[in-house]
């Protein structure tokens, strides 16, 4: 599939890199003991360290370090046993210290890789450049007052992992797939809840275009995109904008832009006369972060199985389609459900029932998998009844619908409603004889060449049996009797 964009003067290749900021799941903040949870009243989750009062000092939270290492391991990345915290100096009202504690030259995690799953079922590897820990900033509100801004420091100092990709993506769809997979991995690991609406996961996109085969073009950065849709929209807009400028003979300004969610466009951040000079230097209040190899090994040993590995097993061993495997492994809860429901059963059949009937019902009702009354065991029980011929696939759909509402086992529903499939050849023959006898004219038409009428006879038999005749047997016996 070509990702090239055709412009007025020829084709263009799109080059995309992403910097994703993921809030670390932890109870307390990165360098202070205040709570890192979302939703408190303004300035309640603020320690004096977060408010940068005179003489306050940072002390690092060990769980945040572990979460960063786990994430690095999940990205198959190099864990740097020694890393350094640097100060990134700039002034802003939501940055009380006048600097952000981040990692510049020596991040905690180095190069890694992320496999993205595309719509056509293929997969591609995207390089990870690095991951580092840094403090989140507070929140400023500019719309509460005509001439004043209001500042809330609750978010100040919450731990962030900044995950930087290599500029390996070539379309907005790939970028969205990247964030989708990254989010999935973070949720599997439990290192970030990936809640984009609440701001736990946000992306800055770096976009440039070039003629195929040439060097990278000048890129722009669009910041703080908090949904997959916005990421794609922003990229698509930037690509079109840049191509238009270049085709007109203009140049792209290297700049930071903001995305306007209401218009779907990007605009320049009104930049000051001089670009930021962050004057990074190692934070003298903090010493180098040193992690022991055996600590890393222990964290690695305790990692849950990750989506790509589960997916490989589902497509390789169980023969699921890449699409089904991707859907099932997107969330860890779904993968665990599938594992349980399909154990010792027809793996493909269970997958099919999950992705079509179960997810369909969940979407329609707005329930989550966790709320659902159809437990993995119950779904498995339903599939067993199909596999051993007790009910047909068609009947099973009705049984499922009942199970979904009532929470009953499949066997109980079948029993109560008398839905057992009829597989007694004698009974079926009798029904078929009855249908043939009642429809002699149609039989003559069929035997005369109207093949389509076969379906009519099947329908009649099924109707007579209340849908419970074994469809396979009906087909076979009907053929025999009609074709003679």
């Amino acid at each position: 599939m070509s990702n090239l964009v055709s412009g007025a003067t020829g084709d263009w290749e799109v080059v995309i890199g992403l910097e994703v900021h993921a809030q670390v799941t932890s109870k307390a903040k990165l360098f202070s003991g205040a709570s890192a949870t979302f939703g408190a009243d303004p300035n309640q989750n603020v320690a004096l360290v977060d408010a940068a009062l005179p003489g306050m000092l940072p002390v690092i939270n060990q769980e945040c370090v572990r979460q960063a290492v786990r994430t690095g391991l999940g990205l198959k990345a190099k864990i740097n046993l020694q890393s350094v915290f640097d100060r990134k100096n700039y002034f802003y009202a939501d940055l009380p210290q006048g600097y952000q504690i981040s990692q510049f030259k020596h991040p905690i995690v180095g190069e890694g890789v992320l496999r993205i799953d595309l719509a056509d079922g293929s997969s591609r590897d995207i390089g990870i450049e690095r991951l580092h820990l840094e403090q989140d900033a507070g929140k400023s509100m500019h719309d509460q007052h005509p001439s004043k801004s209001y500042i809330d420091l609750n978010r100040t100092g919450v731990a962030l992992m900044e995950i930087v990709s290599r500029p390996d993506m070539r379309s907005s769809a790939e970028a969205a797939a990247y964030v989708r997979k990254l989010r999935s991995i973070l949720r599997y690991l439990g290192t970030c809840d990936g809640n984009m609406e609440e701001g736990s996961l946000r992306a800055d996109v770096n976009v440039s275009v070039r003629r195929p085969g040439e060097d990278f073009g000048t890129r722009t950065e669009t910041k703080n995109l908090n949904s997959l849709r916005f990421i794609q929209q922003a990229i698509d807009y930037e690509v079109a904008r840049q191509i238009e400028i270049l085709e007109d003979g203009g140049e792209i300004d290297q700049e930071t832009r903001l995305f306007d969610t209401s218009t779907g466009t990007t605009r320049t951040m009104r930049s000051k006369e001089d670009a930021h000079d962050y004057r990074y230097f190692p934070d003298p209040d903090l010493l180098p972060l040193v992690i022991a190899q055996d600590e890393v090994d222990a964290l690695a040993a305790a990692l849950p199985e990750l989506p790509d590995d589960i997916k490989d097993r589902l497509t390789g061993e169980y023969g699921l389609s890449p699409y089904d495997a991707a859907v099932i492994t997107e969330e860890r809860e779904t993968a665990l459900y599938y594992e349980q429901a399909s154990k010792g059963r027809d793996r493909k059949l269970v997958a099919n029932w999950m992705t079509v009937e179960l997810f369909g019902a969940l979407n329609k009702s707005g329930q989550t998998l966790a709320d659902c009354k159809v437990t993995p065991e119950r779904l498995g029980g339903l599939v067993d009844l199909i596999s051993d011929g007790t009910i047909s696939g068609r009947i099973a759909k009705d049984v499922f619908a009942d199970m979904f509402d009532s929470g009953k086992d499949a066997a109980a529903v079948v029993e109560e409603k008398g839905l057992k499939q009829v597989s007694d050849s004698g009974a079926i023959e009798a029904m078929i004889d009855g249908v043939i006898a009642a429809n002699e004219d149609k039989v003559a038409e069929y035997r005369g060449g109207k093949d389509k009428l076969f379906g009519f006879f099947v329908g009649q038999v099924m109707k007579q049996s209340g849908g419970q005749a074994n469809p396979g047997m009906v087909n076979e016996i009907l053929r025999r009797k009609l074709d003679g």
Partner: protein
Amino acid sequence: MTDLLELGAVEARAALAARDVSAVELASAYIAAAEETASQNHYVAMTADRALEMAAQSDERLAKGEGGLIEGLPVGVKDLFCTAGYASTACSHILDGFTPTYESTVTANLWREGGVMIGKLNCDEFAMGSANETSHFGPVINPWRGKDGVDLVPGGSSGGSAAAVAARSALLATGTDTGGSIRQPAAFCGVVGLKPTYGRCSRYGIVAFASSLDQAGPFSRNVADNALMMQAMAGYDEKDSTSANVPLQDLTKALGQGVKGMKIGIPSEYVMDGMDPDVVTLWQQGQDWLKAAGAELVEISLPHTKYALPAYYIIAPAEASSNLARYDGVRYGLRVEADSLDEMYAKTRAAGFGEEVQRRIMIGTYVLSAGYYDAYYLKAQRVRRLIRDDFDTVFQTVDAILTPATPTAAFAVGRKVDDPVTNFLNDVFTVPANLAGLPGMVVPAGLNGDGLPLGLQLLGRPFDEATLYAAGQVIEDSAGFTATPAGRAGGQS
């Protein structure tokens, strides 16, 4: 009252325990002394009511035969330390009236050990300076008078602390030392000052100047008093990531240890142009004293000594430029109103910071800025390693190093200088120890031709304050320095 002021800290503690004297009496004597010497501007704020309250509580404990290390002893606190409920300004207009709701760890330790807070002591603004002339609250006048009665500087940045101890308006005082800010004023005022090993005393709650160099330490009249105060101040603090979890040695035992068999290094590079010849003489005398007491003197070389000052004047301002970014008018301190946030920042900081502070922030910002970081900041950090390596090498053969504390005695207030660098040279002997993180003690050892105090400096291995106390006690015993300044409380004015 004057007799009470004569008691040193160790003596006073014993007298309090024996109930020969009460803490309230002692505190009252020091409060009166502070009033008497007010023209020297040691204190920027007195906390007399609080002192008497604390003293009364000390008396209750002492009556029961209880009490901490410094129970009932009057302490002055450099205004760089945050003291809960009392203004803590770093002697800057930008923190005018700032009243912290929290206590620094060092002062919390002092109050837990029974210290009585007399007041907040004057200092150079944000600890930047070596003459206590940059304070928003005006200069401190050294209780020692110059020739022809000229006003002298007490040294800096802990000028108020040193002057108060010398003038007897405080029995003990806290200071901080980033480039010599305890040791140099100790020398200028004829008192004992210790800069502990970096990490010995917690930096939590102390207004940060240069984080990798700052260290809190005690001022006292004599070495034994200093050991007592140090024991009360020091200790591991998990709220400070740079705090060292290394237990303090038995300093009381160290005081009586003597220097027999101790190897004392004499660095050839510590002879500088423009040094007062009396300083050279005193240094030699110090060597003789130690030798007579059984130490062995060893000539050593610290080849990168002369580069310590320029390295310091890159590193310290760089860290300061970042540490002082929080003083922006948003959450505390001075705010100059403006139409936009950036204007508010710029106007507030211009109005709130004095000239010296602004100059150092500018230099610090410059040496960290794009294109200059490698040439300046990184270069200075590399030289810092070489300086530290020099010390590591010599400490393989010697146990302590003896040097002069300052190139001259205290100079006149308002001395005109053509360029800022002249003032920087005050710190030439003290700065290396900050860069290397080593402990350093200054002990008053003699008077110069003008009758002004001169001090000797001892430098030691990391976490080996005991050796400094042992050698410092020997210097003190040998020097027999009993002179007191004309400007002292109860003295002739």
